[in-house]
């Protein structure tokens, strides 16, 4: 009975772990199993994964076992990175939020609020069409003023700028002191 479930357990462990797992480590974790059974399970898995039609291979690297993708498929895997959504950087998100909530706004004002140069971020947000130039401010130097775009609304699924939640609405989610003005208990008339 030990065979099948153990093999399955080992496969799970190899799957979720991001480092090669040594036999020693496995034996430590799966202390209720015999080391020889463990070795047998690994050998069996090794053989199974060696089947040519699998997209995953089990390799023995750096003293441990690790599941890896089939090297022949590297070209396809590379394509995944193209489609992989890159997370917004903190600075991009901050800049975007400042413009969203304080538009129309100049670059100098954004930089004042962020305390750092924001030219690069703003340029890249313009290129992504999340920001747009609204015009020029009528002050000396005629700086450009920025606002958010239609694409911005689409990205966040907003109908229009009115649908942008205000900070107050978020802050209101957590009341400062829910028990502040608690009335007295109406316990006088209890008897049934």
């Amino acid at each position, binding site marked *: 009975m030990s065979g099948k479930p153990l093999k399955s357990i080992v496969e*799970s462990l190899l*799957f*979720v772990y*991001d480092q090669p797992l040594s036999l020693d480590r496995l034996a430590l974790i799966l202390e209720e199993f015999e080391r020889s059974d463990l070795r047998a399970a690994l050998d069996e898995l090794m053989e199974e994964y060696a089947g040519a039609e699998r997209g995953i291979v089990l390799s023995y690297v750096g003293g441990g076992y690790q599941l*890896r993708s089939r090297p022949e498929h*590297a070209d396809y895997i590379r394509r*995944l*990175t193209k*489609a*992989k*959504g*890159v*997370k*917004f950087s*903190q600075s991009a*998100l*901050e800049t*975007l*939020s*400042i413009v*969203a*909530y*304080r*538009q*129309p*706004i100049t670059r100098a004002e954004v930089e*004042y*609020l*962020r*305390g750092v140069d924001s030219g690069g971020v703003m340029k890249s947000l*313009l290129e992504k069409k*999340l920001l*747009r*130039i*609204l*015009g*020029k*401010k*009528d002050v000396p130097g005629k700086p450009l*003023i920025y*606002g958010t775009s239609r694409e911005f609304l689409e*990205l*966040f699924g907003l109908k*229009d*700028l*009115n649908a942008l*939640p*205000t*900070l107050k609405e*978020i802050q209101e989610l957590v009341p400062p002191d*829910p*028990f502040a003005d*608690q*009335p007295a*208990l*109406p*316990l006088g*008339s*209890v008897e*049934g």
Partner: protein
Amino acid sequence: MSLDTMQSNLFSEALEQSYRVQIEEFEGPLDLLLHLIKKNEVDIYNIPIAAITRQYLEYMELMKELNLDIAGEFLVMAATLLQIKSRMLLPATQEEDGEAEVEDPRAELVRRLLEYQRYRDASQLLSARNLLGRDVFARTFDSPELAEMEPQEEPADVELFELIEAFQRVLARVSVDTFHDVVADGISIADRIGEVLSVLHAEKTVCFDALFTTGMTRDLLVVTFLSILELAKLKLIRVVQVESLGSIWLTLSADQQENRPEQEGVEPQENQNSLETAEDAVVG
């Protein structure tokens, strides 16, 4: 270990109950009432309101003795129960035509309890599923094969809430009075400018008065007015009056309408045109 035992260790309501001490935290008054109904083994469609009310109040008394905070919702429910109880004590009025049947005073409460129970049951079904990160695990890391590859940029998934959080971070760092301070009904000048702009983008031309609807607070009126001034100062909108003492109209400035990405050398066209535009809009 079977899946079932494992989950009951983490979540099962039944298991928790066996460890329940006399005074127990309830999610709210509805949760407490359901508990009392279950404990007394009474029919939810026919709640013995006097007894349940008494137990409910006893529970609150206990909480008070233990110096526990009693959330306002518990008090509201206590009042509701007492009210239902007193209405139940009134003799059922004999209707003139026997037609206008009085609804059971408990009906509304029962409806809420049933509805609440439904979602509570559903939440238990949900938590009995194989939860990611509890019962099943996916790979949460980039495989070395993928990590070695240079990612190609593309706009990502981002939630509205993240945007707000980012802005809160900014605010936390900057002293508050660097912002426009006038705020009415949670609307700052900047917010209001955004609103006015989006109305103008949709309508092209808007009557000045239309932005000041009745029922607005005085503060909101001020904020709206300041917003319009600000927009005019920024030359984002034009303010035109078709005839003296006539309505004032607001339109987006010319380059706003064309929506050009770059504004180099574009001079806003002046007056005559805009007057006509406004007049057209009035007629149309």
